[in-house]
């Protein structure tokens, strides 16, 4: 990133942060700062290095190079002190299936040294927050995927963290469950909790993140607010054309219809500031796509532009 001095309020400060596993470089010298109170995202496909970065921030993985400060401390030296002030929602739930729903929160609170009475109070309060109050005495294995995710989020909040790390918080959830999770995260942000999340859903990043970095192949390829990234790397609107199989027209037939054209296996994307006008122009050239869609540009388009690939393959 452009800034080289540590901003006074940076909760996370990374310079040249690198993680290598044997022959693989998972994170390749990335720079970023996360400031207090913001929601910061790592957007990228699977294998881009998002989880490795999160694990280094969570002090359960040692950086192979570069510098990293979390809450002003060193993750290698001060792991327990840092983790005492973090909430972590890992990629796959690590709920305790041997315990009931409320016992999961209670024992987790105890790991932080929270007194038993207070632990019970917080467990009840958090179950209310994630709308699992009536499942308090159920076995974890009987919860749906969305409920387990909410319980994991509740568990991550049990120590009232300053910084909440969420690794793909809604992967695998149905749309309704995703919106419920987003709503709770949005509330937390309003309460002043700093949120760092990874995602490969652009709508998630657009909904939740104030700022984000786009990662690809272990490197940061772009950073900024969702809006500024779209502004910088895409057009205002996108015209999506879907042609019958093997009937995609030659690219020269589309020439001049848009600022930029991407031909994907299943559709053609025309980047333009006026999607409707482009659609009319397509029609007037005698092209007959099976389906036409005019939509706003998204981070997916940004990613495609930056890497030449779709985000989810």
């Amino acid at each position, binding site marked *: 990133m452009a800034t080289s001095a540590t901003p006074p309020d940076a909760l996370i400060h990374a310079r040249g942060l690198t993680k290598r596993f044997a022959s693989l470089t998972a994170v390749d010298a990335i720079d970023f700062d996360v400031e207090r109170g913001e929601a910061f995202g790592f957007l990228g496909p699977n294998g881009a290095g998002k989880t490795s970065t999160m694990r280094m921030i969570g002090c359960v993985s040692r950086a192979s190079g570069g510098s990293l400060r979390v809450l002003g401390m060193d993750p290698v030296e001060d792991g327990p002190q840092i983790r005492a002030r973090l909430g972590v929602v890992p990629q796959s739930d690590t709920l*305790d299936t*041997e315990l009931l729903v409320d016992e999961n929160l209670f024992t987790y609170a105890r790991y932080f040294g929270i007194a038993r009475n207070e632990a019970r109070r917080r467990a009840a309060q958090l179950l209310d927050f994630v709308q699992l109050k009536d499942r308090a005495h159920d076995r974890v294995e009987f919860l749906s995927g969305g409920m387990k995710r909410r319980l994991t989020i509740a568990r991550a909040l049990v120590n009232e963290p300053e910084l909440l790390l969420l690794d793909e918080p809604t992967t695998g959830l149905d749309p309704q469950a995703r919106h419920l999770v987003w709503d709770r995260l949005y509330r937390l942000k309003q309460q002043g909790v700093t949120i760092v999340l990874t995602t490969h859903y652009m709508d998630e990043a657009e909904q939740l993140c104030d700022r984000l970095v786009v990662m690809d192949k272990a490197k940061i390829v772009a950073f900024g607010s969702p809006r500024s990234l779209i502004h910088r790397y895409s057009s205002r609107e996108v015209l999506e054309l879907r042609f019958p199989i093997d009937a995609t027209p030659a690219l020269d037939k589309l020439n001049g219809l848009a600022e930029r054209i991407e031909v994907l296996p299943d559709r053609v994307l025309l980047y333009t500031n006026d999607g409707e006008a482009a659609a009319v122009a397509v029609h007037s050239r005698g092209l007959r796509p099976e389906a036409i869609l005019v939509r706003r540009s998204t981070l997916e388009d940004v990613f495609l532009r930056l890497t030449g690939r779709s985000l989810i393959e």
Partner: protein
Amino acid sequence: MTGALRVLEHNLVVYRRTWKGSVFMSFVSPILFMAAMGFGLGGLISRGPVRTVDGLSYLAFLAPGLLVATAMQSGYVETTFPIMARIQWERTYEGMLATPLRVLDVLAGEFGWLALRLGLGSVAFFLVMLVFGTVHSGLGILAIFVSVLTGLAFAAPILAWTATRRTTNSFALIGRFLITPLFLLGGVFFPIHQLPQLIQGIAWLTPLAHGVSLARSLSAGALQSSAFIHLAVLLFYASAGIVAARITLHRRLVT
């Protein structure tokens, strides 16, 4: 230390749901074994030409050996599949390590808990021994500690091994080629000196023979100077296992 207590507290919350069955089994299993082997087999021996084994009735000879061998088996059972579950399937430890807890806290908590469980099982077993009248000395009560220590002398190295595994294939092999042969040949059912020299030597390399021998001499009230060697071997396996487990579990969980 407080971290370890919190891990231990977690296990206690889990145990609250299963303790009745577990305590029940701690009594049933020794009673069955003592009845079958002691009265049944022991009855034959007492009427035969030898009458006693190493100067003890067969039941008094057998009981401390079974006590210790049971702890060995618990140590093995508790540190294979359940630990694999917490490392890999349920990822309980990953959850714990996202809190101020460290790998050392997790290990200390698990071993502390295991010592408690082994202790409870051994106390139950010892009570059965008292009822059967096989404890001939006040020192016998120390056999409980020997039993716990022997359990840990197996549990700690096996946990260290488990932490290096991604599959469970080797767990059955440990049972088949280590635990079961030791149970049968490690001095529980007959004196080790009955065995060929080579097998005797192998038996003395493992913690079981030392645990059995020590517990038996305590129970009989015939403590010898070799007791210190037995104790040293047990302490060696337990502490080396803990050091190894600290290394392998750390390597597995903090990457």
